[in-house]
């Protein structure tokens, strides 16, 4: 989908155009990918796919230990949330929709488990999805994963490889289980129809990793409303529900936060919803107010590091690198959060039990008191 004209400025004037601003936001994906590759290379994460999405021209910088650690915590926390959604108690088919997915490798990592019944969608700017699809076409390993995972779910399609269709010009990819949609998130508002392939009857998890924070507060809120008006409605026949998990900066009011805002704005990056959702309390209230009202939670990354990672694993990562940045780590980690919320209703039918709910285990994560 093209950049909406309302974001474009006709002149060559000094302030960056909408397209330039969008490009800056898109480049944050490369930044995150390089950090991810650094964390993989240093042994924090296992992810053989990350580096396949790296352009040859992109320098493979090794990040500082505290950035590696932050990348590790962010990924691990989201993995735990996703794992909890996928595993228990409801064992049926589920759907994940990743907003601003960029070069994220989560689908490929999950698809290693072929018994998992999953429909996976990614939304991003066409410039970003095209780059991702090119990487998939370049690396046979990635293409094979998509094909084979598709076959597992729909054996009748097994005759024709590659098992997925690509529209390179539009930047879209579709297979029975994996879709890449070229979508400008700012177009998603209540009443907008669901993109192709999305099944609103499945329990659905939305993921935003440092994505919605770049939208205007109104655009970001509209996406929440679009989700809660289209998903999560209970029906007689099937259990469903919708949940969302966010990873984003918080706390712009103190001196660290002010410097963060100033530094990022010098790169043209504006954290547009930061002010409105600057605390864990406000993040939870956001969930409640915008329809994810069955349950919600929010923790800062420092808390997650201390409370969500088990002792053995912590010992492992402590040994990977000397972390001579303790105070700085705490400071930085307290300025990022994971927030989640869900809406699901017990099906009206008597035969259904609490065991049919998908998000119930989310209430078991250690919660930070605020």
């Amino acid at each position, binding site marked *: 989908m093209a950049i909406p004209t309302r974001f474009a400025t006709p002149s060559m004037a000094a302030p960056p155009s909408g397209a330039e601003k969008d490009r800056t936001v898109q480049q944050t994906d490369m930044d995150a990918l390089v950090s991810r590759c650094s964390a993989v290379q240093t042994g924090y994460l296992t992810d053989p796919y990350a580096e396949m999405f790296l352009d040859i021209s992109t320098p493979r910088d090794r990040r500082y230990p505290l950035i590696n650690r932050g990348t590790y915590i962010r990924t691990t926390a989201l993995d735990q949330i996703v794992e909890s959604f996928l595993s228990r108690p409801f064992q049926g088919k589920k759907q994940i929709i990743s907003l601003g997915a960029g070069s994220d490798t989560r689908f490929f990592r999950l698809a290693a488990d072929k018994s998992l019944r999953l429909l996976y969608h990614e939304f991003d700017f066409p410039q970003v999805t095209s780059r991702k699809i090119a990487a998939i076409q370049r690396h046979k390993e990635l293409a094979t994963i998509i094909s084979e995972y598709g076959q597992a779910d729909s054996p009748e399609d097994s005759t024709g490889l590659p098992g997925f269709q690509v529209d390179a010009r539009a930047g879209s990819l579709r297979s029975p289980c994996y879709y890449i949609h070229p979508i400008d998130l700012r177009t998603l508002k209540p009443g907008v129809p669901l993109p192709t392939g999305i099944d609103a009857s499945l329990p659905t998890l939305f993921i935003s990793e440092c994505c919605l924070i770049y939208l205007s507060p109104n655009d970001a809120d509209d996406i929440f409303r679009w989700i809660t008006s289209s998903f999560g409605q209970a029906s007689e026949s099937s259990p469903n529900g919708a949940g969302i998990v966010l990873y984003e900066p918080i706390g712009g009011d103190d001196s660290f936060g002010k*410097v963060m805002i100033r530094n990022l704005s010098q790169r043209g990056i504006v954290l547009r919803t930061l002010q409105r959702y600057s605390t864990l309390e406000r993040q939870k209230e956001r969930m409640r107010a915008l329809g994810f009202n069955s349950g919600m939670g929010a923790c800062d990354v420092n808390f997650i590091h201390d409370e969500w990672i088990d002792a053995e694993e912590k010992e492992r990562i402590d040994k990977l690198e000397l972390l001579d940045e303790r*105070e700085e780590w705490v400071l930085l980690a307290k300025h990022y959060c994971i927030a989640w919320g869900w809406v699901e209703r017990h099906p009206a039918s008597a035969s259904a039990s609490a065991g049919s709910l998908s998000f119930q285990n989310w209430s078991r994560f250690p919660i930070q008191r605020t």
Partner: protein
Amino acid sequence: MSDLDSAVEQLRQCRPIPESQVREICFKAREILIEEANVQIVDAPVTICGDIHGQFHDLMELFRVGGDCPDTNYLFMGDFVDRGFYSLESFLLLLCLKVRYPDRITLIRGNHESRQITTVYGFYDECIRKYGSANVWRYCCDVFDYLALGALVIGAGSSVQPTRLADGEDAETKVREAEDEVEIEVIGLGGVVTRQMSRRDAGMINSTNLTPSALPHLSSSGPAGALLTGVPGTGASGNSRGIGNANTPTNTGGAVLCVHGGLSPLIDSVDKIRLLDRKQEVPHDGAMCDLLWSDPEEIDGWGLSPRGAGFLFGADIVKQFNHLNNLTLIARAHQLVMEGFKEMFDSSIVTVWSAPNYCYRCGNVAAILELGEDNSNAVLRSGGEEVLFNRENTRRLASTYMGGSMKRGGPGRRYRVFEAAAQDSRGMPSKKPMPYYFL
């Protein structure tokens, strides 16, 4: 102008000097450092500084606030390199000053003055980037191996001469003039006195009421010029209202141990530090490693450090060490402190942090600690006893006054708090530092 002076001039402008000159300066520096003890003895007055981390423009700001070398006697507690974008210029400038004025600047080793750490945290890459080879990095690392592990400041006065307040100004705790000596003075941003505490004031300095937002004169420039001109430390106890009066709690202002990180379970005396063989890469464990890596913490005894090297140590450890070694204070660096400095454990130890807006990201202020000199030949009277106070008998004096009693008796201390240099000041190179965030 000598080669050395021109090198200093060039480095002051944040311009690297040729490789051959680096080699020569490192060689000369090594000849000086090799003669120094593991624990260098330094006479007060002295200005003690914490981590610099390659933040060259902030080092210039430090010199502006604290006075130039050699006018001011400096002691830097390590971590000159890594993290910032100008480790090379910062370290070489300090090293040139060391060669030029060996008795006016003391450099001790931080945990980043190490081959292993500099390859992770930036100094190695910076040398490669600026010279195209690792030679300069190697010369510098060879110097690191000869840096002292600590310093002992002796002859510090028991009070600082209060900075005169300008008309209409009022420090948070104003000393009752002529009644009391000033033990602690804090000069906040813009050179404004924000706090004066006399030795009689109960309680200790509390960093929480010193946060930048709590500093009453944060944004005002104040009469900075007038206040900054006072030569630090001079005549700190010259005003002898308190001294000579038997009713005033007299204090020797005894020795202050300066070390980058902290204490070690393997070291129970300053003399044991003197016995170490320091001329090597920082080991992964052992006494030398601990001195450069450990941190004070609110615990009893010793604890494991989350840094993966060194230990955590509690108030009991510090108080016992100070008592056994006749120290009145341990000054150390190593940990970011948002307010620039932090006294702990009844003022038995202080962290001094001198890298403002650390990594161009943390939003903290920085500080330096000035210890004034005592009148070296002044006769102290206490209960009729006369003691000559000078370098030779510091130890005896300290034990006379400190013996057995654990009362707080730190030297007079003036903290000068400062902010990061403006980014576009002093013709800073156009490349803007860009710290990482999670995006």
